Every structure is written in structure tokens, then in C-alpha cells.
């Protein structure tokens, strides 16, 4: 009886829910339609839109900020799709091998584009048109990824600097200039600060995803030895690693957990730290007046510093070639370059004056980057070039040196000899020329 009683109500409910469902579907159509521009294959929203697949700006806020830059400056409708480097390389290479290219523009770091050179269009003509932009000679050399023609157009650049919480300045030893640090001065400062604070307050991004290998490759070793690979195990390298061992004893041991320095810096756990500009930018976000950004220290052979460069490339037989080229031209204009710096802290690759109204952290970084690049004895170093998939293994060699020398206190000479053998094994299989600061003409191997 009860069931009978509820029966009519039940059917009316179902009719109502049917109506609701219909309404819901109707209302969701515009939302679903707007999803059409986004898909993980890197495909464009449709004809006439540049499908831009990139490894940069994966965090959603950065992505949104960069989409705004594109909308304002790209001069062509662009569907920006940012993915992890692994997804990027497999997407590009599988689409190339299937002969079914869904993307029209690719953006990535030099090290990510170089292994894909075979699937990228030559951009020599485009670079000739853009020669007035003022790309540096080193950058243009880099775009050739070891071959004779350029495979990408420089997009933006970054480097590494030292972030200093002004609290640490009270322990700065007399005679040490914070804006012109030497490695000796840096060490003396770290030790004085450790003593003064009662705990180590200098840090390194030596965590599993930290970029500390770039410190040895691009800063420490070039500054002490003048090279990166050829001088890997000479006497100067032993001096450099002896220095590193001593420096490590004055750094906070929690460094092996830091993937980027901005978090421990912002927490006050660390007061002075070296890292990639994009991994430092949030430390002074709330109180820029309490922070300094300074160039990395200089050593006996100069101020070694590493340049990270990102490029824009055209996939071979990609879609909407004209539009993609138009977007590249637009993105290398000074205004869009500066807007990228403002929004996402990547520096311009073209010759341009930086505006004076940059916000706190970025203004600090911009000053430090400029001072580092223009300082006397500046010694440009590049991340390994032309190693393709072996880049990780080569960088791991430098991390192994750190692991064994600083953490396990093994004899330096022995570690360097063993790791040099490993390094040569990898390099012999590759047969690539050396990159800056090593002499570029030779075949790259440890002397």
C-alpha cells in the first residue's frame, strides 16, 4: 500500500530530474565547448590557432600569467599547453615518427630541445630576420645544438644568483663586499654566521630535485679551474672540491632536503642561499626590503656563472607554420620579453633596457643578474650541450662527486679519478665538442 502511495510522486520526481538533466546538459554545452582548446596531445584549438607545446610555466598560476602575455603580445591566437619535460620529448618524438604533427610551436630549455633537433625545422632564415634584436653570439652558437644550422630562436633566459637575508649581513667579515663576493669571502662569511647564529644559516639546493650540480658545473669549477669537463680532475679541481668540502661543513645539513631555496629562505631556516632565479623569486615576495640578491662569488679563474636559455622551435612539418613564425617574431620583441620578466621572472634574451618599475623581488634579481653578467672576469658557462638523453647522467657525475666528497668524506683525488673515468665513458659514446667555458673546438673529454 505504502509503495502504491508513493508511486506517483516517484514518477513525478523522475520527470523533474529528467528536465533538470536536460537543462544541465544544455547549460554545460558552452563550458564543454570551451574545453575544446585544451588537449594533452599539444594540438591546437583548431585551424588558425597556434598549438604551443612547452615545458615552461607548468604551475597553473605561471601558466595563466603567461597566457595573458601571449594574448597581449603574440599577434596570433595561441593555445598554450605546458607539460613535463618527459611528456614533451615523447610527444614531439612520437608525433614526428608517426608523421602526424599536431603542434605548431615548441618551447623548451636548450637541454630539452637539443635532443629533439632531428624533429625541428631549421630557423636560420627567421634568425636572420631577427638579427636586429641583439641576441648574443654565445646564444646563437647554442641554438645550433652542435650542428651547422640553428634549430630554435632564443626565447628567454635565466641564471643563478645568491639570495641574502639582510639579517646575515651582521656577520659579514670586514673586507668582504657582499656585492662582489669571492669564494674565500663567502666561506669566511658562512663560518662567521654559523658561529654568530649558533647554527649554520647558509644553504644549498642539494635535495633530490635541487639544482646543486649546476653550482659545480657552472660556478665552482669554472671559477677555480676555468673549465667544466676538460679540467674535471686537474689540481685546480682538487682545490675546488677541497673548498667545497670546507664550505659544506659551514652549510646547514638540511640542505640535502632542499629542492629549491625559496622555501627555507622564506621560513628563515636559511639566511643565505644560492639557487636558480625562478627558485628564489618567492623568498622576498612579502618583504623585499629585507633582502638582497647578489652575484655568485668569484674565484681564482674568474666569476664563473651559468646561463640557462629557453628557446622557441618549429616542429618539422608542423601545422600553421606562418602563424607560428609570426608568434615567434612577436615574442622576441622587447616589450613582450619584458612582460615575461614581469609576470614570470624569466629574463629577456634580446638587447633592451629593463624598466625601472619592476616589482620587489624581480627588481632585486634583475640587478643581480646584470651585475653578475657585466662584472669583471665574468666567465660564462653553459649547461651541458648536445648530450641529449645523457645530460642527466653527466650531471649525476657532479652530484656523485658532491655525495662522495662532502657527505661521505672520501679522498678527493680518488673520487675525481673514478668519476672522471665514468664521465669519459659517457662522453666517448657521444663524441660531442665541448661547450663553454671549455675550449669549444675540441672533442669533449676529461684530460
Amino acid at each position: 500500500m505504502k509503495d502504491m502511495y508513493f508511486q506517483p510522486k516517484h514518477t513525478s520526481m523522475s520527470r523533474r530530474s529528467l528536465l533538470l538533466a536536460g537543462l544541465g546538459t544544455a547549460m554545460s554545452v558552452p563550458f564543454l565547448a570551451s574545453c575544446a582548446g585544451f588537449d594533452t596531445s599539444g594540438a591546437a584549438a583548431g585551424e588558425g590557432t597556434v598549438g604551443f607545446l612547452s615545458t615552461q610555466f607548468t604551475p597553473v598560476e605561471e601558466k595563466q600569467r603567461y597566457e595573458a602575455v601571449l594574448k597581449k603580445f603574440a599577434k596570433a591566437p595561441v593555445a598554450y599547453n605546458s607539460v613535463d619535460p618527459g611528456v614533451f620529448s615523447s610527444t614531439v618524438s612520437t608525433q614526428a615518427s608517426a608523421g602526424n604533427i599536431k603542434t605548431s610551436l615548441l618551447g623548451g630549455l636548450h637541454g630539452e630541445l637539443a635532443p629533439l633537433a632531428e624533429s625541428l625545422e631549421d630557423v636560420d632564415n627567421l634568425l636572420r630576420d631577427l638579427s636586429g634584436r641583439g641576441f648574443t653570439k654565445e646564444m646563437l652558437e647554442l641554438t645550433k645544438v652542435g650542428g651547422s644550422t640553428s634549430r630554435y630562436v632564443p626565447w628567454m633566459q635565466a641564471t643563478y644568483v645568491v639570495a641574502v637575508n639582510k639579517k646575515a649581513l651582521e656577520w659579514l667579515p670586514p673586507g668582504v663586499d657582499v656585492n662582489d663576493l669571492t669564494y674565500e669571502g663567502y666561506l669566511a662569511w658562512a663560518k662567521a654566521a654559523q658561529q654568530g647564529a649558533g647554527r649554520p644559516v647558509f644553504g644549498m639546493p642539494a635535495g633530490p630535485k635541487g639544482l646543486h650540480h649546476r653550482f659545480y658545473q657552472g660556478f665552482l669549477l669554472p671559477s677555480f679551474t676555468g673549465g667544466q669537463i676538460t679540467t674535471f680532475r686537474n689540481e685546480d679541481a682538487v682545490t675546488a672540491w677541497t673548498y667545497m668540502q670546507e664550505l659544506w661543513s659551514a652549510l646547514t645539513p638540511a640542505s640535502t632536503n632542499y629542492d629549491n631555496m625559496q622555501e627555507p629562505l622564506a621560513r628563515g631556516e636559511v639566511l643565505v642561499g644560492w639557487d636558480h632565479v625562478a627558485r628564489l623569486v618567492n623568498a622576498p615576495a612579502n618583504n623585499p626590503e629585507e633582502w638582497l640578491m647578489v652575484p655568485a662569488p668569484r674565484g681564482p679563474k674568474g666569476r664563473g656563472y651559468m646561463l640557462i636559455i629557453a628557446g622557441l622551435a618549429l616542429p618539422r612539418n608542423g601545422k600553421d607554420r606562418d602563424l607560428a613564425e609570426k608568434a615567434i617574431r612577436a615574442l622576441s620583441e622587447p616589450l613582450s620579453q619584458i612582460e615575461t620578466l614581469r609576470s614570470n621572472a624569466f629574463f629577456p634574451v634580446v638587447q633592451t633596457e629593463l624598466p625601472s618599475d619592476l616589482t620587489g623581488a624581480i627588481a632585486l634579481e634583475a640587478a643581480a643578474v646584470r651585475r653578475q653578467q657585466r662584472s669583471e672576469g665574468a666567465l660564462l658557462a653553459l649547461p651541458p650541450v648536445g648530450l641529449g638523453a645523457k645530460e642527466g647522467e653527466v650531471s649525476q657525475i657532479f652530484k656523485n662527486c658532491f655525495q662522495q666528497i662532502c657527505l661521505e668524506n672520501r679522498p678527493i683525488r680518488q673520487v675525481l679519478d673514478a668519476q672522471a673515468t665514468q664521465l669519459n665513458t659517457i662522453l666517448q659514446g657521444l663524441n660531442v665538442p665541448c661547450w663553454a667555458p671549455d675550449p669549444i673546438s675540441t672533442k669533449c673529454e676529461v684530460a
Partner: protein
Amino acid sequence: MAVEAPPTHAETLAPPRRRKIPPAILLIAPSVVFMALLLGWPVIQGILQAFRDENGFTLDFVARMVQDPYFWPAVRNTLLLIVVMIPLQFALAIGMALMLRTNPRLHKVHFFVWAIPLALSDLAAGLVWLAIFNDRGYLNSILSWFGIEGGSWLAYDNQASMFMCVLIAELWRATSLVLIIVVAGLQGIPKDYDEAAQVFGATFWQRLRHVTLPLLKPSLQVALILRTILAFQTFAVAQALTGQNFPLVVGETYRWYTGLQNPNVAAALALVILVVSMLTSIFYLRALRDKNQGGLR
């Protein structure tokens, strides 16, 4: 009355033609195909990848693996973890299962709560414990609340505390699997045996040692094999807690495959895990073999 086997379809339709493929083979064929495609083929691929480069057979990748400064620490840590963790886990799981058997109040709730970690991804579990053991995590916060200075539990120079943290997190995460198998095994043991032993005046420990545990042996064997093999695969928890400071073999495999992009050395590492897992299973199967059942187990 003897029951005749029902005539098969083929016989009723076409009696004169003899079937060439016996039904037994047809029955196991899907699983053979499945094993060959989804297990056999990848194993062969893996072996080829570990021992072959473009010039043919090579031991280079195995040499690279062995010379890597993280390899031996990873092997040591993995074995250490297994040796310490498995007995602890079994003691805990058997204890918990016996407690559940006494039907305490809310025993279903207990069981449910104890089984929760089973539903959690191991990376999530690792992150939960990271929030506890971190330098500024819950543990140190609570300690400082009591006026005790906490330590850097996960710092690289604190191998012992790092090991303890991984051990505790893994115990929390993976004991529930053993618990469920043991509870299922206990439910299969008729109460009569225990009651009979009770009648003859056996104490709790005597009953546990001579009645319950021997009858639990098949379940324990399954649980041991599963847990040990899974313990060789411990990865995400240690990765989340310690990064590379406490290397484990599977973590190294992952690092070589993704970070260093060298699938050949990763395959060599994976083979190490495969071989060790197989040896362990064979060892357990032989050591726990039930003498009465001959070669069945």
C-alpha cells in the same frame, strides 16, 4: 550412483569428428597467452635491454650499475629494511588478528580502522609521514611543546633516524595487508581445535604455538611471499621521506629510468629485483613446505 560427464557441445553436434585440441589446453590457453604477453614478453625485453646495446651483448650496463655510488647502499638499505620490517610486521599483524578473534567491543570498527592504510597510495602515505618527521613537522612541534628540542630526523647524516622513519612509515602502511591475510586465515580455522586444546588444559601460548600457527601456515606463507616481494619494491614512502638520502633499489631503478634517462641500467636494476624476488619466493615455498602434502605446495 555414478554421474556421467555431460556430453560436450561438439560431441552432440558432430559425433564422428574427434576434437584435436583437448579442452584442458583450451581452458588454460587464455592464461598462457596472458602470461606470455603481459609477463613473459616484458621480462625478455628487460633482459635484452640490460645486456644488449647496438653492438650486441655487453656487460657495460651491469658494470655501470655496480659502480654507481648509490647501488651498494641501496642494496644494503633494502635488505636491512626487509630483515627488520618483515618479522615486526608479522608479529604485529598476528597480534592484531588474535585480538580481533576474541571479538572485542567494536571489533568491526577496529578492523576497518586497521585496514585503512591499505586503501592509501604509498606516495600519499609517504607524504603524510613526511609531514610528521619533517624538521618542522608534527613530531618536532609536539616535542617542542613539551620543551624538548627535536632533531633533524631526515637529515643525510642521521642514517639511523632516517631508517627508523622509513621503517615506521612502512610498518604503518603495509602491515594491514598481512593483517587481512592472517584474519582470513584465522577465519578458516575451525574453533573446535582451539576448544579441544583448551579442554586438555593448554595455555594460550601452547595453543598459539601448537594449534593456531601451524594451521595458519598456508596463509602465513602467502603473506610472507607477498610482503617480502612487496618490500623489495618499497619505494614511494622512502622517496617521499628521504629523497635520495636513503636509497633503495627500486628508487634507484626509477632514478636511472626517469632522471638519468638510461633505460638499460634501469633494466639491469629491475633484473636484480626480479632475481632476488624469485629466489626469495622459492626459498619460502621450500622452507614452509607442508611435508604431508608432498610436492603440492
